[in-house]
């Protein structure tokens, strides 16, 4: 038998990997990891120790300080300085690549990344330089405030990773506010263009000059115009980022059209903004081509918005697909329970019974419980389950004797007691 007649056995590969990567760690490594978590839980090092992962809102950890990153271009352009102290004047930390650095509580520590870029941690911020060479710089910011000057002429790619987000840039001017406590990231671009990746998107989201992207804890994206900041007319001609995004996984773009100087600042007409403005049909039309991909990639808040917009636009099939996606991807959440109710509401007969019962099982005290119990009476009747419908009517009247379905319920009980 020759090698060409052999194939790779996945079980053997897996055994090899499993034996060598078994989760073991030295006692010291375990203690270091535990201590790090304990300090994060205590809020020691302020909100700054936390972790790159302190991005889910609320919860156990009391985080004190909001975090912010501000970038600005080399002196040839206007400089946005986030605090009184310039990063250029900061004391060098002398830290090595990969080493965690924390700035003094009221001071600045510079990160030495070489030519064309000056970066500094401010006021207790904590971070590290993850990678640096002639072409690239990657900085991980756990929490706090980082200021940077990046010279576009140096032709080095620079990225900052904050929580689950990555902001990538080659020479531009923008400000990132990262608040681990609320889980909100805001990126305001005053010149050039940046791209932001989020856990909910498979690819980066472009944000042009004159706009501010806000990503909330639930992953909902909002794009707002910045008052008094004009969009770069040439922005679309400047490929700041050279990422080759695969079309199949491209993130939903929220890039607005450049505005003319006489335009008033406006909110970009994303499908989200259209839906929120009650323009449901326009919202569904705007996302039509990417609808199926959106079902698989949107965060829970946006997916709910999309499903409701489709329902309110009368696009029943799309609404059903979106509610089913909510059920599948976010099982066990309030959004999934609401989806069950909406699926019940737009179904009939046995299907309606199934969904309404599911909703009442998952959210017996939910905001749609009264409506669901009322609709269940009709759905059971339509499905030919008269005895169950009578029982449902009795339950309804016990809970909501003056509810909107009380009249129907009483009529059913009366008819069922008639000979």
């Amino acid at each position, binding site marked *: 038998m020759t090698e060409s007649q052999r194939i790779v056995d996945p079980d053997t590969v897996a055994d090899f990997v499993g034996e060598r990567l078994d989760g073991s760690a030295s*006692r010291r490594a375990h*203690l270091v990891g*535990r201590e790090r*978590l*304990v300090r994060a839980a205590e809020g020691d090092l302020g909100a700054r120790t936390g972790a790159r992962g302190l991005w889910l809102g609320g*919860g156990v950890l009391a985080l004190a300080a909001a975090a912010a990153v501000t970038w600005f271009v080399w002196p040839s352009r206007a400089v946005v300085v986030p605090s009184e102290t310039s990063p250029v004047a900061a004391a060098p930390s002398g830290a090595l690549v990969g080493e965690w650095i924390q700035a003094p509580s009221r001071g600045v520590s510079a990160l030495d990344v070489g030519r064309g870029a000056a970066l500094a941690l401010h006021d207790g911020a904590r971070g590290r330089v993850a990678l640096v060479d002639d072409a690239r710089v990657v900085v991980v910011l756990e929490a706090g405030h980082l200021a940077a000057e990046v010279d576009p002429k140096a032709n080095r790619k620079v990225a900052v*990773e904050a929580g689950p987000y990555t902001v990538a840039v080659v020479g531009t001017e923008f400000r990132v506010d990262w608040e681990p406590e609320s889980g909100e990231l805001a990126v305001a671009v005053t010149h050039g263009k940046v791209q932001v990746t989020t*856990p909910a998107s498979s*690819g980066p989201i472009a944000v042009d000059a004159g706009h501010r992207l806000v990503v909330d804890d639930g992953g909902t994206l909002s794009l707002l115009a910045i008052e008094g900041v004009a969009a770069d007319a040439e922005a679309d001609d400047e490929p700041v980022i050279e990422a080759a995004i695969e079309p199949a996984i491209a993130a939903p773009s929220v890039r607005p059209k450049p505005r003319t100087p006489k335009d008033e600042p406006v909110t970009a007409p994303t499908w989200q903004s259209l839906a929120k403005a009650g323009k449901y049909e326009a919202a569904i039309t705007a996302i039509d081509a990417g609808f199926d991909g959106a079902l698989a990639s949107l965060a829970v808040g946006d997916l709910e918005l999309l499903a409701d917009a489709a329902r309110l636009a009368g696009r029943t099939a799309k609404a059903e697909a979106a509610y089913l996606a909510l059920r599948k*991807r976010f099982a066990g959440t309030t959004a999934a329970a609401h989806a069950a109710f909406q699926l019940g509401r737009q179904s009939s007969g046995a299907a309606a019974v199934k969904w309404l019962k599911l909703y009442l099982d998952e959210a017996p005290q939910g905001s749609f419980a009264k409506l669901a119990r009322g609709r269940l009476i009709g759905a059971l009747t339509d499905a030919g389950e008269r005895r169950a419908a009578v029982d449902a009517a009795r339950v309804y009247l016990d809970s909501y004797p003056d509810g909107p379905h009380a009249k129907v319920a009483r009529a059913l009980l009366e008819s069922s007691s008639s000979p």
Partner: protein
Amino acid sequence: MSANAQRVAASPSTDNVEVLPWAGDDRELLELLRRGGATSAAALYDRFATDVRRVIDRCLGPDRERDDVVHDAFVQILRGVAKVREPAALRGWVMTVAVNTARSELRRRRFRRLWWSSEPAPESVDDTIDPEQRDLLRRIYGALDRMDTDLRLAFVLRFVERHELTEVARLTDCSLATVKRRISRAVAELGTRLGDDPEIVARFGKEAS
């Protein structure tokens, strides 16, 4: 405070003490976690660190940022643990968070690779593993790096972690049918990607049926 909680609270984090495993049950741990604080964080870490490290290790491969990712996972676990009601569900929920953290990290790296147009600096590998085996691990994870993240996770959870299909579906929040499809595709892709490497085939090959 229970004996376990006292033990954890009193345990100094210095290098001259032994790390004792969490000896209580998950009901006791959950109660401790609901009260919050440093003691509960330490107990949580002691109870699940090996499991979380292992699944993240296997999902990411040998990795110099492993400890950061593990820390991220535990921070998220601490923040969300109030949602867990049943002690019996605690471990499953912890592992789901660990897998989700690994998935986020893999997607972040996918973007990094696209953006840099080339691979970032090579990741370091545990130097307790001999060089030949380190090299094999690098090649295997090199192939996994080129696979879709969901396929990669399905393969690791099914074949390396040895979970049942239903458990893989739960951990990756998808249907059983989707898991089966992903595993099938992952095995085919991995076979193709590693099949070109004669050393890999010699070491991990089997006769084609």
